[in-house]
């Protein structure tokens, strides 16, 4: 029934016209809206009306402008940081200890024998260039195969345009060598792009020490990369030899509590509290008494002389289940000292996308993480190294010894990949490749750093030296001979400081709630408006659309009627109905309607009963407006 009524009314309106004008609608809206400005426009005198009109416009535009700013602010996804400092029971960091020297010299001597003899002879030549030196004659013939792969030369840049290149082992050049030595020359280490080709690039060094070290590292890398991993682990320092004593808080621990990991730079490394198989240890007290105490032996006598010139233990604190990148984050501990390390865990917890461009677990980084074979979590260092190794495999065809291998690829060595050193050097110094890796790797959202306060003291003291060495030697080697000395022994204390954490955590500065309340605040501030006001406005728009539609239909019909033009056409049903219902006509005689005119403009427009969704029946409307 209602539906039918509604249709009748709609039909009626279509035939009759909208019943009210835009202006009336607008006035009605202004009068009845809950927004503050419009009401004043129609209620004030003409001058004030104008002022209020402009004020309302101004406020409305202000509201929209500020809304724009607010929405922009929201979409920029700002964060605020909050800082908390204090002490709490925390996971004790994983502690990785290594020896600065990767292998025991006594174990690898047979592999490096040729190389060492070569370098000794080369040094001899460099330092005492006079030919016919007595020390040269008794030595067995040198293995110059290694030498020719990557020779070490001297370049005399005395004459800038024609630098003289002197191979150290070319005997015919020794006379020249004499001369050049007087002019204080740089030592150089060249690498040819292809063996035997003339296309050589020379890598300059300003110091012979660097050149020799670099040369030795390249050569030994090539040799050692051919040794299977098991053998390399065996050649390194064993846990029971290295870790002499261990105490965590009041609990004793020993080398068995350490997880072995093979690190290409430092050989065997041992990780305490890595949390891979067992639960990570907690520390609930600050101070050295409750930390980790270690005594290490680095047996400095067994260092490879040309490989690492610095002696000490390398250690690093890192998170559980993360790979220790000792070259980046590691610190040294000196032999013959006690090193105390107070730890403060500096955490930065960030919000992920869209607040900042970081990754939670590295799954969205387009670089294959080669360190995942260690079951370690993603880190930016792992990503960068994986990226480099991937480039290396792609360009040079083999993997670098310092980084893990992708499947089905071998490490580079001089036999299989003669040009690898050149390839590696150019890749390493290529800014472009570095930038690619920097761009494709993302940092992790939770950035944890261990801030260390390092202090050192001599240890053992002269008075206690004897008995300490005695006991430690006895425990390790079961002999009464002292097998340790000052140059090899290191004591470490690692503990939480009084304040052991500093956490900076991010939270969104602008949430949707913030946005809504700010939008509401703006609208309310300038115009006293709310969402309901917006709905009101929308309603008016719909109404005016309705008017437009009716008008357009009416206009179209008028056009058609004009074309047809029946001057004496009988009144349409609708006209009759309209005559009955139109309030404006009630007091007049309906019969005297002039028929030839379409319809006179409504004499007294009914007081705008502008509620467009008029639900009451039309008849009820009458009496109210009767008064006028």
């Amino acid at each position, binding site marked *: 029934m209602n539906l039918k009524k509604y249709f009748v009314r709609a039909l009626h309106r279509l035939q009759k016209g909208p019943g009210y004008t835009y202006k009336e609608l607008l006035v009605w809206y202004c009068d009845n809206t809950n927004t*503050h*400005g419009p*009401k*004043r426009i129609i*209620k*004030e*005198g003409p001058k*004030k009306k104008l002022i209020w009109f402009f004020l309302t416009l101004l*406020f409305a535009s202000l509201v929209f402008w*500020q809304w724009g*700013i*607010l929405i922009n602010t929201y979409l920029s996804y*700002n964060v*605020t*940081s909050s800082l908390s400092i204090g002490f709490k029971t925390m996971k004790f960091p994983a502690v990785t200890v290594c020896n*600065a020297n990767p292998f025991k010299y006594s174990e690898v001597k047979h592999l490096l024998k040729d190389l060492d003899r070569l370098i000794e002879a080369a*040094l001899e030549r460099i*330092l005492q260039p006079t030919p016919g030196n007595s020390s040269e004659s008794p030595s067995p013939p040198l293995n110059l195969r290694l030498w020719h792969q990557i020779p070490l030369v001297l370049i005399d840049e005395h004459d800038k345009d024609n630098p003289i290149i002197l191979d150290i082992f070319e005997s015919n050049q020794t006379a020249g060598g004499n001369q050049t030595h007087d002019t*204080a020359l740089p030592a150089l280490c060249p690498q040819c792009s292809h063996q035997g080709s003339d296309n050589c690039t020379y890598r*300059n060094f*300003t*110091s*012979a020490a*660097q050149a020799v070290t670099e040369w030795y590292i390249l050569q030994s890398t090539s040799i050692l990369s051919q040794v299977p991993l098991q053998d390399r682990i065996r050649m390194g320092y064993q846990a029971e030899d290295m870790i002499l004593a261990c105490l965590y808080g009041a609990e004793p621990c020993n080398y068995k509590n350490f997880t072995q990991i093979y690190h290409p730079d430092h050989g065997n490394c041992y990780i305490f509290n890595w949390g891979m198989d067992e639960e990570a240890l907690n520390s609930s007290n600050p101070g050295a008494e409750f930390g980790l105490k270690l005594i290490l032996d680095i047996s*400095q006598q067994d260092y490879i*002389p040309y490989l*690492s010139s610095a*002696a*000490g233990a390398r250690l690093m604190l890192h998170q559980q289940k993360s790979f220790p990148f000792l*070259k*980046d*984050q590691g*610190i*040294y501990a*000196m032999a*013959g000292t006690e090193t105390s390390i107070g730890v403060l865990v500096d955490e930065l917890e*960030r919000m992920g996308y869209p607040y*900042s461009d970081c990754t939670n677990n590295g799954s969205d980084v387009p670089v294959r993480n080669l360190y995942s074979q260690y079951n370690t979590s993603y880190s*930016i*260092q792992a990503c*960068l190294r994986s990226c480099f190794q991937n480039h290396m495999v792609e360009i040079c065809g083999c993997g670098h010894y310092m980084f893990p291998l992708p499947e089905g690829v071998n490490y580079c060595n001089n036999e299989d990949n003669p040009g690898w050193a050149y390839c590696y050097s150019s890749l*390493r110094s290529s800014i472009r490749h*570095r*930038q690619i890796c920097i761009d494709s790797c993302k*940092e992790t959202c939770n*950035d944890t750093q261990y*801030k260390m306060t*390092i202090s050192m003291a001599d240890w053992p003291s002269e008075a206690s030296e004897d008995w300490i060495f005695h006991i430690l030697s006895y425990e390790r080697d079961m002999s009464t001979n002292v097998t340790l000395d000052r*140059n090899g022994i290191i004591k470490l204390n690692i503990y939480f400081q009084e304040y052991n954490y500093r956490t*900076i955590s*991010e939270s969104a500065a602008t949430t949707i709630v913030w946005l809504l309340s*700010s939008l*509401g*605040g*703006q*609208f*309310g*501030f*300038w115009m*006293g408006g709310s969402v309901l006001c917006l709905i009101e406005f929308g309603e008016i728009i719909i109404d005016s659309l309705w008017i437009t539609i009716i008008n357009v239909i009416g206009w179209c019909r008028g056009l058609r009627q004009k074309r047809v033009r029946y001057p004496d056409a009988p009144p349409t049903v609708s006209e009759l109905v309209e005559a009955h219902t139109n309030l404006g006509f009630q007091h007049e005689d309906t019969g005297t309607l002039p028929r030839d005119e379409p319809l006179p403009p409504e004499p007294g427009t009914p007081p705008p009963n502008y509620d467009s969704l008029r639900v009451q029946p039309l008849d009820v409307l009458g009496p109210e407006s009767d008064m006028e």
Partner: protein
Amino acid sequence: GAMAPGKKITARIKRTLPVRGPQAPTLSELMRWYCLNTNTHGCRRIVVSRGRLRRFIWILLTLSAVGLILWQCAELLLNYYSASVSVTVQFQKLPFPAVTICNINPYKYSSMKEYLSELDKETKKALETFYGFSEGKSKVRRSVEEWNSTGGEFFKEIPLLKFEEFSKTATDLYTGQKRKIEGSVFHKDSSIVNSGDSNDIIGFQLCDANNSSDCALYTFSSGVNAIQEWYKLHYMNIMAQIPLETKEKSSYSADDLLLTCFFDGLSCDKRHFTRFHHPLHGNCYTFNSGENGTILSTSTGGSEYGLQVVLYIDEADYNPFLVTSTGAKIIVHDQDEYPFVEDIGTEIETAAATSIGMHFTRSRKLSKPYSDCTETGADIPVENLYNKSYSLQICLHSCFQKAMVDSCGCAQYAQPLPAGAEYCNYKKNPNWMYCYYRLHEKFVKEQLGCQQICKDACSFKEWALTTSIAQWPSTVSEDWMLRVLSWDKGQKINKKLNKTDLANLMVFYKDLNERFISENPANTLVILLSNFGGQLGLWMSCSVVCVIEIVEVFFIDSLSIVMRRQWQKAKKWWNDRKRDRPGKAPQAGDLERQGHDNPVCIDEDLPTFNTALQLPLPQDSPLPRTPPPNYSTLRLDTAFTEQLPDTLELGQH
């Protein structure tokens, strides 16, 4: 519908043209009109409520809402200038900082001998006589002779004294004379006076040259400090007289200091270093100073990609009295920053590899009005004597130097020269040392005002350093290492290097994560207005429109009503006086009072056209009684409909 047509018209006019805003006859009428028509909530309820209690409650509620709004808005305004901190981490290629390296010993002892021999002789002498120290028998004998021959020039200038706290006497260590202590005693070394009087207190006395009774005593608990301080004073005197070129020449050259250099996997040499002469530390060398316009950057973290240098520290050529420790000092700083070697240097050891891992943090504070910091230092009334960008340290040093030049007439040796000044030496400024100590005392006690003038810089870069030390060279590599390094050193030094002459330094980025800590304004104007809007809307559903209304009604309209009433009163009084003269009873006053109190009678009082012209009021016509709308009005239709019965009745009179 039952109304007579005339009344109907009146009512209609009343309804269409009611008395509004400024037309309201009285203030209370205006208030009533305001309360009924305002957009704010609460006010209307006061007027509409029936019953005193309820009205009272509504008044209370409205007032407290207004109070709350004012309080909250004031709070918002007060907290407007607050900042929120954000920390961002960016992983990127980082600019490598400038690294300044100095030998701890400023000048080669051998090349400074000619200037310092006199002073050294006397110092040795003093050590021998006071403490019985002798380097060797033969030397002692010789120096005794020298002692007699030279006659202790430096000791005459500043005598070293031994004090006895109880007797307040001082023994001159050189002449053996005893004298009374005059003037104030400054304990340079130990501010807490030693309790045991058995301890000898050593010190020296500085007197005002113009007024010898005005003396200051500087005491030290240990002769080590006293002798060093005493030596330093003379040393600075001598140094101030030596021209800069000579000093630069007698300090270490880049070739002397740097044995090897390696950066980012490539060799570097002395061309990558910039020399800078520090008054106390001699020649220092800055790596990556950015002088030639390029600043090196690192795109890989880790020790092998940073700076690695081996330094040659010629321990044998150290000045034994000036410096007592061996090694080098390094400072990691920004290219724009001045390296304050003496204040913030990190010392590195010889015969060791010092590995320094860096972590880069950039911070930025908001300047005024958020905090009291300065962006460029241009707003600080202290001339920047250093050729570098502003820092607090620079400001304090410049400020002190300025005060020094102003009050002592010469500049202190350790800081740069202001224009037109020259360094102090006691040939030209015999009084400077006394003056300097006095001034320094004031400076430390913050009496010079430098600490008040100087503000901290708003943005700063910080490299947090993690320093660790390893033995270097290792015992097995020591032999070849030293041989090759000696060869590197070349022909200039024909001796084999000792490992205590060498220091290995590695400076590198631990990671390329740059932390950027910045302050942001917590509030913007938009947010402040939003918050205002929120408060206004929450308590009273008010907006700027309401505020305008309030201004309009309470200030403009009320004022105009008051003015009009005053004007009417004055006019009435004038008329009454006119009427009084003929002698009429002042009845109008009563009427007026009535009108005041009874809103019903208002219309009687209103000056209509008729009353103004003193025309007799027509009895029947209701129209004139309604005040004609003078100017078309703000009219809200519903305004008077509720209470208008009174007014309507008025029309029926």
